[in-house]
């Protein structure tokens, strides 16, 4: 169990981490989600006692990191920045770590095998590709066979094969009963791996919830309608007091609409429908709403979140650019249940 209490870190006038309190519970994968610059890496460095908190504290099973005996046997960590000596072989990089925590030397060969680097064990790590470097970092995290594992953006810069490998590795480690704390700026990545979710924005805690609850509470559900007689349909809906938004592709969306009632209304007025489907907003949209909400909250700190504001533009851009590929599946899976059967 890792406990953060009022953890705060200021760099000059910039508050990178702002009064953060949460617990990382054992035996599950906890996702640590936030846009770039939200303070995830800084939080993780403070957990490992690399950065000193401005105030607040971190306790690991009740103890400060500095008081742990042979810490590699409690916590293994993969940091975001490079953290190995490039002029040393992969084997020797791991060997010196093993020796400092009295880990038997055979573990070095074992973890190199686990991450698939046995063939390049004697090669200098300087020449490693991004993916190989990431694997070496993971090998060092696994070296002490620790109960807690922390990964800072482990999939960053990896090819699809590497991403797949890391995802499966984390699941396998969690299945063994270990505590996994993994950060990401990609909601889709978290949805695939995390059971529990901690969301931060601008260093502040925005959500501490199970993945399922997060999805339930944060995704907008709506009914989508398409009709060649859309003007007539708009009329009918307006007369029945139903608010409609029109999308760019000519479809109509009714927030929290009841699909049966909308279908019946159309039938009554003999309107042809080309589409009538229940939809759920994607997870990335929910996440963007939440982080955009944090910006809103900063501006007027007297009220609550209010109506969900438009997602911050810059953020959405970068997300969409990266959300191609495997990311899309999640959204599809989750909305499919409502979408069919009408």
């Amino acid at each position: 169990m890792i406990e953060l209490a009022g953890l705060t870190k200021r760099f000059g006038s910039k508050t990178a981490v702002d009064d953060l309190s949460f617990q990382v519970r054992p035996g599950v994968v906890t996702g640590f989600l936030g846009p770039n610059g939200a303070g995830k890496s800084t939080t993780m460095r403070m957990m490992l006692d690399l950065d000193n908190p401005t105030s607040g504290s971190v306790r690991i099973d009740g103890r400060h990191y500095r008081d742990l005996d042979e810490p590699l046997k409690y916590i293994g960590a993969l940091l975001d920045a490079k953290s190995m000596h490039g002029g040393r072989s992969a084997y020797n990089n791991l060997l010196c770590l093993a020796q400092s925590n009295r880990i038997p030397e055979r573990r070095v060969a074992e973890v190199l095998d686990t991450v698939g680097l046995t063939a390049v064990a004697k090669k200098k790590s300087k020449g490693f590709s991004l993916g190989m470097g990431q694997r070496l970092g993971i090998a060092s995290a696994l070296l002490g066979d620790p109960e807690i594992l922390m990964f800072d953006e482990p999939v960053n810069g990896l090819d699809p094969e590497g991403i797949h490998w890391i995802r499966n590795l984390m699941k396998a480690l969690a299945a063994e009963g270990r505590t996994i704390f993994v950060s990401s700026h990609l909601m889709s990545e978290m949805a695939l791996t995390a059971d529990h979710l901690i969301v931060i924005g601008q260093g502040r805690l925005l959500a501490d919830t199970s993945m399922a609850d997060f999805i339930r509470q944060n995704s907008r559900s709506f009914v989508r309608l398409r009709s060649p007689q859309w003007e007539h349909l708009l009329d009918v809906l307006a007369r029945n007091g139903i608010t409609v938004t029109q999308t760019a592709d000519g479809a109509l969306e009714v927030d929290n609409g009841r699909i049966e009632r909308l279908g019946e209304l159309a039938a009554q007025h003999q309107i042809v429908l080309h589409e009538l489907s229940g939809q759920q907003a994607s997870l990335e949209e929910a996440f963007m709403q939440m982080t955009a909400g944090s910006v809103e909250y900063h501006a007027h700190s007297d009220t609550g979140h209010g109506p969900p504001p438009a997602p911050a533009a810059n953020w959405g851009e970068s997300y969409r650019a990266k959300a191609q590929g495997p990311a899309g599946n999640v959204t599809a899976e989750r909305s499919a249940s409502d979408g069919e059967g009408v």
Partner: protein
Amino acid sequence: MTTPYQQQAPGAPLGTYTSPIPVRPASLGDALASEWTKIRSVRSTMWTLGVLILLVLGIGLLAAVAVNASDAHMGDTPLLSLGFYGVLLGSICVITLGVLTIASEYGTGMIRTTLTACPSRARILAAKSVVFFLLSFVIVTLCTGLVAMLQMGMVSSAEQPTGSQLFKATIGVSLYVSTLGLLSLAVGALIRHSAGAITVMIGVVLLPLVLALFMFAPSLEGVRQALFEYSIPSQLAVFYGSSVSDSGPTGWTPLLILGAVTAAALGGAFAALNSRDV
């Protein structure tokens, strides 16, 4: 997809994973083993020590050969002082290795991993200091010892050194040069930048002498004299019995001075490591 957090059975034991590797408090011994692996597994160690050996042996022997060939009479000059220039140049290698022992960890980012594995800053600094100092001391003692033997065998025109002279020119010189390396290690920890720290240390070695050379004004005579006598090359020369003046430090005093400075620098390095973000 993995089990959602909520679906864990309420009473189920969570986080049941227990590592089969037993845990006990880490010790300085483990840190020493780790640092020994680190220092022997990078090429910069081989390079700096290799060049050091070449300089001390090469220049020491050349000097002996030159004295023999020219039939010059060394007069009062102690025989072993022929080894001085080799060691003075070689000390730059020791400085470099001392700085790299810690500053290269900052350059590569290794320091984050090191301190995650061993969060005690005092233990890391102590282990690095001990491993570096012993390695440097052994190598410099072997080199200066070998050079002294060869010089004693080759040069007949000078008096053979006494036991005390031999001891100072080998063990004394090695202690002094290795302590200088330890000071470099502390400076490397403070500056966290290899090239910067090496430059600073070369400045520390050379600058007082250079400054003294340019102090012509009679009013500065006292300062000039002090810079001369307390500069590192002059203090190193004391161990060869060939000090530049009669008034400066003598005997083992240079080692005490450098030792005190180094202890203070190491104290500063520890305070910095302890309070700084990595």
